[in-house]
């Protein structure tokens, strides 16, 4: 029986890959099957993990009435389907966004701004660590010149210059001319290096997914099918 499921999975993978040659009905079938199965799966998962335990069970079994309030707000979302009463859904969305932002903003400020600012000032961002622009690392470099000490000395200054120049690029209150323009140009260079790294990682990720499916086709399906 397991072999049947493996074969179905392999055939569906090949059906999706067939799009690389050209669009065709077999690909369309596999695509629609994926969308349909995913929609059904997500509906069941959300219902049995959220609606049933948090609303139905709480009200019916435990006789707690408070969950009826978020339940009612959730019900209002469905009014988005109506042109006449669509505005009712805004109440739920406002509540959702309000609480979400209230929870997220303080921790996001700490995690993504304050800690990152500290990270551009001191090594590893921990209190008591030496500053990123560390003069002593330069004196170490001049006394003992090697690759490790060179990287150690220039790492911090590159990071600081990169941050400042990139911020200069996103400063739009003044035309990018003169000194600001030069800083902004350096900032663009840092941005391009960042985008290049991201693109390289993206290529690696996509190739990894291909390897995963090919490994399944070659080493799982094909070998089992022919008893290799």
């Amino acid at each position: 029986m397991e072999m049947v499921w493996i074969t179905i999975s392999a055939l569906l993978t090949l059906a999706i890959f067939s799009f690389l040659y050209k669009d065709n009905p077999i690909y369309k079938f596999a695509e629609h099957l994926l969308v349909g199965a995913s929609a059904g799966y997500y509906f069941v998962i959300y219902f049995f993990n959220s609606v049933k335990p948090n609303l139905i069970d709480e009200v019916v079994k435990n006789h707690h009435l408070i969950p009826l309030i978020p339940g009612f707000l959730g019900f209002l979302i469905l009014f988005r389907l109506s042109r006449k009463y669509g505005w009712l859904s805004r109440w739920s969305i406002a509540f959702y966004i309000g609480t979400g932002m209230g929870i997220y903003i303080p921790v996001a400020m700490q995690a993504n701004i304050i800690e990152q600012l500290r990270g551009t000032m001191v090594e590893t961002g921990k209190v008591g660590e030496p500053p990123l622009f560390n003069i002593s690392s330069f004196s170490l470099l001049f006394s003992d010149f090697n690759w490790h000490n060179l990287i150690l000395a220039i790492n911090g200054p590159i990071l600081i210059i990169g941050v400042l120049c990139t911020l200069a690029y996103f400063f739009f209150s003044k035309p990018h001319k003169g000194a600001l323009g030069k800083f902004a140009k350096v900032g663009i260079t840092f941005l391009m290096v960042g985008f290049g790294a991201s693109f390289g990682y993206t290529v690696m990720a996509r190739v990894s997914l291909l390897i995963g499916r090919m490994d399944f086709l070659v080493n799982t399906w094909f070998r089992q099918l022919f008893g290799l």
Partner: protein
Amino acid sequence: MKNLLDKFLKMDRRYIFFLVALGVIIPLIVPIGLPVDITKPVKDVYDAIDSLPEGSYVIISLDYDPATIPELDPMAYAILRHCFRKNLKVITMTLLPAGPGVAEMATKTCAKLENKKYGEDYVFLGYKVGVSAVILGIGEDIRIPFPQDYYGTSIDDLPMMKGYKNYDDTEIVITISGTNVPASWVAYAHQRYHVNVASGVTAVMAADFYPYLQTGQMVGLIGGLKGAAEYEKLVGVPGKAFVGMDAQSIIHSLIIILIIIGNIAYFIVRKSKKEGVG
């Protein structure tokens, strides 16, 4: 020469697809065994787990779904096996709705391979809706978001969970994800409850999380199939990531060659067209 380059630029892209397919399939059938070097962010994750005393509680949040299995399954398996070999108390869960099947399979398979017993050495809590609410809830008491495990057993009836309450009892949280969920673990679990967080992510997401390493908000980072292969090597369980690295290296070389040839051809053809017009 110009005609040849012009033809190259107009080449049917299906030839490239065919070359890529060959570049992946051949090393999978005939492995080359290219070396895998260990990088510091991956070693840091390994050291953080390896230095824990026996019986320490570890939360492994397997926040990925079938779409990212090829990249994330190998690192999940390697980390789980490492934790089990160190006799740590492993709590696994998922914050993605399509994650329970994948997370359960990874947990069960690794536990079986390392002869671990459910409820005593590890528990699987399954999925709960609401990423931030779940992470914050565990900070107060894990029984708030997860009163029961995935199989409906009360948390208090599981022997392993008797002495466990919240992040104060947790040595490290490891989140494996192809989404932005690790950022939530950093923001809520690390910033608010000061628990150590390490992460394994898809290569696409890796660049986004490097700033958290610089600041010490993450103790380590495993990025993509390469990171997974490094971890497999460190644990000594070469698996699918290790096998895939040959294909990865060949395809990367092919892409680099095609990009270089494509750019050279583009500039030569453009220059000759300009000269022709002039």
